[in-house]
C-alpha cells in the first residue's frame, strides 16, 4: 500500500520530522473555504501515486489566492501516468538552498533495512552516480544509533548543525520504517532551507502489503491497479495484466512465469498472468476462468503441475466451466503430475487439447494466437 504524499507528510509531522504545513483539497469549492487561512505563496501539488508529477505539470507555485485557484483548477482532474488527480496538497513554499535525498528500504541482499542518503537530491535517484549515494544497513537488534547518523552524514557537504538535523530526520524515518512496516520511505528532496533548516519537502511511503493488518488506521491510496487485478486480489488470486494477448493460468508463481517465458520463446506475448495456486476445489478453477474471460485473451493456456493439488480436480473444474458457460476462445492445456492421465482424458473428452509436453503446448498456443491476430479465429 502506497501512501499519498500528504499522508506521508502527516506521518512525518507526527514523528517529529520537520515538514511544511499543508492543506488537502479535492475541489475548488473546498479551496475557497480555506483560501483565506492559507499563507501565500503556496505550492499546489497533485496527489497521485506515481513519479514525474513535476514534469507533467502537477506541481505549481502560486503567489496568491487567485493564482492558486487557477492551478488547482488545472491540476484537479489532470491525468499523470494514467492516474487521475483527485486531490491537491497546498503546502507553504520553502526557500530551498540544498536538495538532499534520503530513503530507507529493504535491502534484500542483507535482509536488513538500508538507509540511503545523497547530496544529489531533487532528481530521480536512479540518475545519481552510485559513489554519490551513501548507504548503511541498520540492524533491528541495534536500531538506529548516533553512529549511523555520523557515518551516513560524514561525506555530505553540510554544516555541523545541518548534519545533526539530517541525523535526527534519519532516526525518525527509521522509527516510522519500523513501526509502520514500511517497504520504502523516501524523502526527495530533503531540503536544506536558506536559513539552514532541514525539511522534508516530499514524501514517498510504501507499507508492506503483508503487514497492512497492523496499520488499519492508514487508509492507503489505491495504486494504479486495473479493476480486474483488484477483483482477483480480493479473491486471493495473483493476477497480472500484461501487454500481450495470451492468457496463462498455471499453478505457482514460478510456473506461471515460466509458462509466459515459454510462450515468448516461441514468439507469443502473454496477456494475463494468473496463478491458480494450490486448490482442491473445482469452484476456484471456475473463478479463475471467469476472471480470465473478463481479460478477453486471444487464447487461454492452462499449464498445470499436480503436486499436492490433483490434476484431475482441476480438470473437473475446467470441464464444469466448459459445460456451464463455455469459452469463446481456444483453450490449450498441458497437464503433468498427480492423476495426469485421468485429467488429460477428461479434458480431451470435453474437446480440449491436452498434452504433457510443455514446448508442444506452448507452440500450439502461440500458433492459435497468431491465427486470432490474423483475424482467422481459432
Amino acid at each position, binding site marked *: 500500500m502506497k501512501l499519498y504524499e500528504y499522508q506521508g507528510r502527516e506521518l512525518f509531522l507526527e514523528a517529529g520530522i520537520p515538514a511544511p504545513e499543508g492543506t488537502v483539497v479535492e475541489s475548488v469549492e473546498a479551496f475557497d473555504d480555506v483560501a483565506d487561512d492559507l499563507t501565500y505563496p503556496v505550492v499546489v501539488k497533485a496527489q497521485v501515486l506515481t513519479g514525474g508529477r513535476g514534469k507533467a505539470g502537477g506541481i505549481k507555485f502560486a503567489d496568491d489566492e487567485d493564482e492558486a485557484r487557477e492551478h488547482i483548477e488545472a491540476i484537479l482532474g489532470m491525468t499523470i501516468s494514467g492516474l487521475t488527480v483527485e486531490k491537491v496538497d497546498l503546502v507553504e513554499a520553502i526557500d530551498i538552498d540544498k536538495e538532499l535525498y534520503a530513503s530507507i528500504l*529493504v535491502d*534484500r*541482499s542483507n*535482509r*536488513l*533495512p538500508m538507509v540511503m542518503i545523497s547530496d544529489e537530491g531533487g532528481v530521480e535517484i*536512479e540518475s545519481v552516480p552510485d559513489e554519490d549515494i551513501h548507504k548503511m544497513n541498520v*540492524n*533491528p*537488534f541495534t536500531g538506529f544509533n548516533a553512529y549511523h547518523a555520523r557515518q551516513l552524514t560524514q561525506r555530505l557537504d553540510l554544516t555541523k548543525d545541518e548534519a545533526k538535523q539530517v541525523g535526527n530526520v534519519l532516526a525518525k524515518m527509521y522509527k516510522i520504517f*519500523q513501526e509502520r*512496516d514500511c*517497504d520504502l520511505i523516501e524523502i526527495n528532496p530533503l531540503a536544506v532551507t536558506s536559513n539552514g533548516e532541514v525539511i522534508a519537502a516530499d514524501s514517498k511511503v510504501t507499507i*508492506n*502489503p*503483508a*503487514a497492512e*493488518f*497492523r496499520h488499519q488506521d492508514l487508509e492507503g491510496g489505491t495504486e494504479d491497479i486495473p479493476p480486474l487485478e483488484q477483483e482477483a486480489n480480493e479473491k486471493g488470486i*495473483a493476477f*497480472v495484466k*500484461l*501487454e500481450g494477448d495470451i492468457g496463462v493460468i*498455471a*499453478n*505457482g*508463481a*514460478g*510456473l*506461471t*512465469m*515460466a509458462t*509466459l*517465458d*515459454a*510462450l*515468448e*520463446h516461441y514468439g507469443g*506475448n*502473454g496477456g494475463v*498472468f494468473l*496463478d491458480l495456486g494450490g486448490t482442491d476445489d473445482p469452484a476456484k478453477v471456475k473463478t479463475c476462468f471467469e476472471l480470465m474471460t473478463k481479460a478477453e485473451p486471444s487464447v487461454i493456456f492452462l499449464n498445470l*503441475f499436480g*503436486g*499436492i493439488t490433483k490434476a484431475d480436480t482441476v480438470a473437473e473444474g475446467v470441464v464444469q466451466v466448459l459445460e456451464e458457460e463455455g469459452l469463446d476462445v481456444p483453450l490449450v492445456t498441458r497437464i*503433468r*503430475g*498427480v492423476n495426469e492421465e485421468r485429467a488429460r482424458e477428461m479434458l480431451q473428452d470435453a474437446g480440449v487439447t491436452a498434452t504433457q509436453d*510443455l*514446448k508442444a503446448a506452448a507452440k500450439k498456443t502461440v500458433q492459435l494466437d497468431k491465427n486470432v491476430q490474423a483475424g482467422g479465429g481459432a
Partner: protein
Amino acid sequence: MVVMVDEDTRVIVQGITGHQGQFHSQAMMDFGTNVVGGVTPGKGGQEVNGLPVFDTVQSAVDETNANASVVFVPARFAKDAAFEALDAGIELVNVITEHIPTQDAMAFAHYARYKGARVLGPNCPGVASPPDGAKLGILPNRIFEPGNVGIVSRSGTLTYEMVGALTEAGIGQSTCIGIGGDPCPGTTFIDALEMFENDPDTHEIILVGEIGGTAEEEAAAYVTEHVTKPVHAYIAGRSAPTGKQMGHAGAIVTRGQGTAESKINAFKEAGVNVMDFPTDAPEYVKA
C-alpha cells in the same frame, strides 16, 4: 555432510491441528520423516495422526527432543511461532506460511543467526532429502527419487516440475531445497550452494531463480569463487514487465534491478549452464 535433513531430524509441526498441519504431518511421515509431535496452543494433550500435541514448543522439545520444526500457523502469528521455536532450541525452523510481513521475516532470520540456528522460508515448500527419506514441508512425496542432484529453488511448482522431469528420466536427487519466493528468505541460494558443495552425495546442482532482487547474481559470484561442482540454472520471468509483482512477493523488477537478463548473464559469466525451459533439466544433468 548432512544437507539440512536426515534420519536424525526430529520434527515437530507448529499448527498441527489445522488442516495443513494434519495433512502434511502425515505426508512427511509417509515420506519417512521422523515426525515426533506437534504444537497448537490450547490443544496440548490431544493427538493428531498418532502424534502428541503440546501447548508450547518448549514442552514439545522437552518431551520429544525435537530439533526441527515446520510452521503452518497463520501469517500474523508466524513471527511468534518462529521465535518460540528458536528460543526452545530448535535448530531448523521451516516456515511454510506465506504473506508474512517482511520485517517479521527479517527479524526471525536474524534471530536464527544469533541462535546459531537456521530458518528455511517463509513462503516456501520446504526441503526433501530422498536418499535419507526425510522431508520438511509440503513438497509432494511421489515426485522424488534418491540420487545425486541437489536442487535449490525460489519457486515451488516449478521445482516439482523439474524434479518430476528428472525422476522420469531416471535421475535422482540428493536434496531439494525450496528457499521460498519472499524477498528476505531465511536460507539463501548461497547457503544452499555451500551445503551442496560440501555434501559428497551431491554431484551436480540445479538452481531455480526468478526475477526480483539480486540473489541470483550473488549466487553466481559465489559459484565462481567457491563451487567446483557443475551448476545448472533456470530463471523464470524473462518475459515479465518492470514494476509488476509476479505472484511471489519477491518477484518484481524494480528500478532496473532484478531482471532475468541480468541474472542469466551473471550465471553465464560464472560458467553456469542456463536452461531455456524448466523441463529441459534432464538434458543438462549428466547423472
